């Protein structure tokens, strides 16, 4: 275990942002911390990073409290970070390189994070994606053993998001431990070996994404416009009906049976959508509210 967390809490003026959570992070995995805004994931991760002081509880890195060793061996990519202005990307990298006793060669970082095209550019003039790549490079500059990524792709366009995922996969391939917070379920599904779902400062589920889904869902989800169903509609035995605004979802036990049942009830299947459950569905089921609301 590279990190052990026990009974961690953080209070802010009467509010319990993190409410007595315990978990461990095995070496070499990518752990995803999921939850809606305000669930306590950034607070949790900032306590793990040594930025925030916990109200109570313990955090151990390699069996010892966070200290100089941790600072030298951890890489952190914050959610909102400005950099010193009027200095270029190359100068920023050189600056941060000076802070650490052990560093990764700049050429390697420039290659991994694809910084080549804008190395001599002022940090103020970077696009969102370029900025995130630079922040990722800074997080990797000390060749860390554990890397924290706090919502690394929030606000990025889909193309930049996929590029950043590629870079994160490459870091995973180097057998580093990763801790990633996100509110994109797709991102967690793509990158994480294990996920922790948080809500209201507590951990409400933990596991391997696929297994978590398999545990909660045996089958598929059918979606139809609400007005396509008769008002007294009952789904086939074993399936359940969930209104979702102007659409309804049928959590189906067996797709063929459910569809046959719909045909028998003379429901129009023109706008029928059949899909596999996602982490988003799981989250909705566990917390009763949508991830991004």
């Amino acid at each position: 275990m590279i990190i052990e967390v026990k009974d961690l809490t953080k209070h802010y003026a009467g509010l319990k942002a993190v409410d007595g959570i315990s978990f461990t992070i095995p070496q070499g995995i990518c752990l995803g911390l999921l939850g809606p805004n305000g669930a306590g994931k950034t607070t949790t991760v900032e306590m793990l990073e040594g930025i925030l002081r916990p109200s109570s509880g313990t955090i151990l890195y390699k069996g010892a409290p966070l200290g100089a060793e941790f600072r030298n061996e951890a890489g952190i990519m914050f959610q909102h970070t400005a950099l010193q202005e009027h200095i270029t990307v190359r100068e920023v990298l050189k600056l941060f390189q000076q802070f650490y006793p052990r560093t990764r060669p700049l050429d390697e970082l420039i290659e991994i994070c694809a910084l080549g095209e804008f190395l001599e550019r002022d940090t103020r003039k970077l696009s969102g994606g370029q900025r995130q790549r630079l922040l990722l490079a800074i997080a990797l500059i000390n060749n860390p053993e554990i890397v924290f990524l706090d919502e690394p792709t929030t606000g990025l366009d889909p193309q930049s998001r996929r590029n950043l995922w590629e870079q994160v996969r490459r870091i995973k391939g180097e057998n580093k431990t990763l801790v990633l917070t996100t509110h994109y379920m797709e991102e967690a599904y793509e990158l994480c070996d294990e996920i922790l779902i948080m809500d209201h400062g507590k951990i409400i589920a933990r596991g391997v994404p696929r297994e978590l889904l398999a545990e909660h869902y045996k089958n598929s989800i059918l979606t139809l416009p609400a007005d396509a169903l008769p008002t007294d509609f009952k789904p086939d035995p074993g399936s359940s009906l969930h209104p979702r605004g102007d659409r309804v979802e049928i959590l189906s036990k067996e797709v063929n049976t459910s569809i046959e049942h719909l045909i028998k009830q003379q429901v129009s299947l023109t706008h029928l959508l059949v899909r596999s459950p996602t982490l988003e569905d799981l989250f909705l089921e566990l917390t009763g509210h949508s991830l991004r609301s």
Partner: protein
Amino acid sequence: MSPHRFLALLKARNQEFLRDRTALGWNIIMPVLIVIGFAFAFGSEEQDLYKVGVQGETADNSRLETFLTTRHIQFIPIESQTDAITKVDRHQLDMLIDIPGNHYWVNSSSAKGYILEQLLDGSELQKESVSGKEIRYVDWVIPGVLGMNIMFSSLFGVGYVIVRYRKNGVLKRLSATPLTAFEFLLAQIVSRLLMIVAFTTLVYIGTDLLIGFRMYGSYWLLLTVLILGGLSMISVGLLIAARMTSEEAANGLLNLISWPMMLLSGVWFSLEGSHPLVQQLALALPLTHMIDAARAIMIDGAGPAEIWHQLTALTGFSVIFIWIGAKTFRWE
């Protein structure tokens, strides 16, 4: 303390400052324009108020009584006759009257002294003459303008910048590295001090070449005052930046501190003859000591012995404020 980390941060801060053209403009062009503006506006004239030093209580002399109630003349009570005579010598006082001694002094090269002398005519006071070279307002104001510039540069360049760093996450990013708060603060202090010394020297040389002004003392002593004064201003900035998280609040507080300092520290006009409370208050401001010391060196050619209490005050301010600032400093 790692010299490595300190030097890297010092270099980055210097680059950041030197490449910011607007900040550079404020630090160089503004003081030069102010000084040149004053040189033209006032020429070789002094302020248009007559100043008469008066020593002792009113005597039984009706002509003198009348004179002492003349409007548009500022009568300033005098403690030390020697100092007052020096002031007449430099045209800082237009006349000095010693009532018990039945004497008056005027500067033979002062037109104002001549006019006042005519007003006093008939009072049967005995005339004494001095003939020193006049100190122009620009000679007097230049240490003030340079001091003010150093104050703004330190307060905003350290105070405001650190608060901005805290607000936008630069501090958070730095705090997650092995960098210590001490290394960070030291880099900020040293960077700003280097910039202050460099730019003040540039502005000094530039204005001296353009208009020329009086400098009777030691340049090394003046540099010492510049460094200690700069340090004390930076330490005020540091104190403000130790915890604040709002740029707007920091900006307000910095203005709240810098404006009274500009008015009460004798940048533009002498506080002589002002309310004693104001004079006491002025002594609590580092800028007062810096400007006083610089004026003493430049105008009077003062040596270390004459300005030791200002140097002590500046050192004291620096040590105390830096100590409190560093103790209370938070990355977040």
